[in-house]
């Protein structure tokens, strides 16, 4: 029972961290129509930024500034937002595909930096000893996980409310108008682009924050956490939830994560050892197929507002 409670809190925390990323993606795609295939990259930038800022000093690595976690979070948002802004500035005056390709490249390069810039990122082994909030109660799993869940839920709620507010603000209305009416966007020209860069950067910052939150939640990060699969998962979450809806983004994250974890546990239990890797591959096939099926049959998702177009 205790285990279950503790696991439930842990599960929800992870799902809500995905929820934060998905909220960031919803700002970029759902509200503004900007396609990001490098989610894992922006998420990783946030995680590493915060880790480098907050970990205690170590001998063979730059960083280890030992700063407070809150500073790490802010740094994560700033750096991921900056990376997103640069990506946007480079591509948003061009056709939409260029943004997609560039974000894909960002994820590739971030992965390389994580693996190879050992002096900064610790290389394949990543960064350990990232300060965890409530480390003092780590030996009481239920309490520890519950407190962490509260933090994650708090951040999710804060981002959710902020995005709801933003999307109703004049700023959000401009973004929506820009995505619905390409001609208006063109006639606004430069300023349309600047709105889009802002939205893309803000979405990137939210993803970076999610990365930081997760890094402090698990206390240890490595390049393997940030593979392209993560990007797929987040897209699946947004599409299931219904792009354009912040509520859908969070619900979609929980549902997809539950399916993912559930099917993973099922294969672990049912599939013989030497087939496990193959079964895991099949799990990813399923997500890819699901994404395509949703695009074909239910582009508005399952929890979003019922709208004709997406």
């Amino acid at each position: 029972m205790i285990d279950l409670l503790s696991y439930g809190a842990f599960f929800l925390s992870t799902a809500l961290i995905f929820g934060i990323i998905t909220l960031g993606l919803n700002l970029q795609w759902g509200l503004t129509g900007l396609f990001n295939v490098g989610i894992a990259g922006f998420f990783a930038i946030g995680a590493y930024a915060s880790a480098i800022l907050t970990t205690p000093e170590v001998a063979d690595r730059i960083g280890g500034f030992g700063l407070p976690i809150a500073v790490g979070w802010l740094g994560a948002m700033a750096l991921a937002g900056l990376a997103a802004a640069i990506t946007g500035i480079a591509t948003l005056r061009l056709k939409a595909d260029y943004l997609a390709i560039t974000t894909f490249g960002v994820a590739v390069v971030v992965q390389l930096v994580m693996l190879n810039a050992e002096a900064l990122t610790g290389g394949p082994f990543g960064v350990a000893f990232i300060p965890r909030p409530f480390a003092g109660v780590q030996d009481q799993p239920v309490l520890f996980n519950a407190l962490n869940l509260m933090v994650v839920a708090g951040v999710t709620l804060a981002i959710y409310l902020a995005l709801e507010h933003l999307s109703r603000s004049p700023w959000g209305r401009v973004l929506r108008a820009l995505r619905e009416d390409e001609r208006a966007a063109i006639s606004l020209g430069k300023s349309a682009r600047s709105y889009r860069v802002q939205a893309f950067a803000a979405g990137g910052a939210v993803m970076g924050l999610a990365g930081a939150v997760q890094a402090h939640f698990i206390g240890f990060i490595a390049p393997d956490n940030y593979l392209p699969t993560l990007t797929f998962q987040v897209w699946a979450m947004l599409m299931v939830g219904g792009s354009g809806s912040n509520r859908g983004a969070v619900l979609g994250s929980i549902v997809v994560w539950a399916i993912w974890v559930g099917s993973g546990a099922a294969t672990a239990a049912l599939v013989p050892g030497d087939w496990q890797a193959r079964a895991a591959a099949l799990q990813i096939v399923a997500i890819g197929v699901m994404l395509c099926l949703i695009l074909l049959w239910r582009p508005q998702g399952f929890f979003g507002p019922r709208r004709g177009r997406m």
Partner: protein
Amino acid sequence: MSLQFILDGLINGSMIGLGAIGVTLTYAILRFSNFAHGDLMAWGAYATLALVSGIAALAGAAAPIGALSFGWPMIVAALGGMALTGLLALALDWLLFARLRDRGQAIIIVMASFGASMALRSLLEFLFTSSPVYYSRAIQMAMPVGLGIRVTPDQIALLVVTLALVLGMHLFMTRSQTGREMRAYSQNPALARVVGIDVARIVRATWLIGAALACAAGIMVGILVQIRPLMGLDMLLPMFAAAILGGIGSIPGAVLAGLIIGLSEAATVQLIGAEWRAAVAFAILMAVLFIRPMGLFGVAER
């Protein structure tokens, strides 16, 4: 400094260029950047492997041709693999892309290609596991050709094949009626219909050609390096960068840009280190986007 990197770069660049032809055609004619293009490449490589194994099982082992690592079954299998990859692309179009195209939201098609790419790649992992496989275990001796450059017979053969394919593609696009129609359609789809061009035929030709060339690139990677489910994903960024650097829609541009990127990667490996190789394509991509987004041979977007 050894000049070997020039040869390595040319080989690597040929594979990128062959793949980029498909990317650039898909973009120019079907109007979306196909994230599943790399996976067509990997599927082509595996399909060819299956055919080679099949032929070996039926007809027994065949002697290699001359000093090459492979014999006639490889050539037959390569042709078969190209056809199968073409069919796979047509099937994908029929199942997925055509339906979305009718709704007319280009970026949704990009997203679908992204989902398809993931499914295709992981399906390969499911079928063949992620450990690398090879067409042949034979070790080839590299011959010195001067200036400190060494080259294997396979490398020479594949460079010649690439050259032939690129020339063939160029002639096809400039001399054949279908090639002209493809260029016309990419310039102005509505006018293409007015002059009687059957769009469905153009779409089919585009997929078949792009997929066949992707398969050829995949086979080259397979012969010279290894076959892995992720081989296409790893080539995706260089292929996109080459298509954009060359100028969308330009086949000579894609090939030239592929060579430029291949050479830059090889130079980077030599000067900085192999681990940074994958960043080269990104650096070139960013430079093109900031300095000359239309690419070397591109025309300003309408």
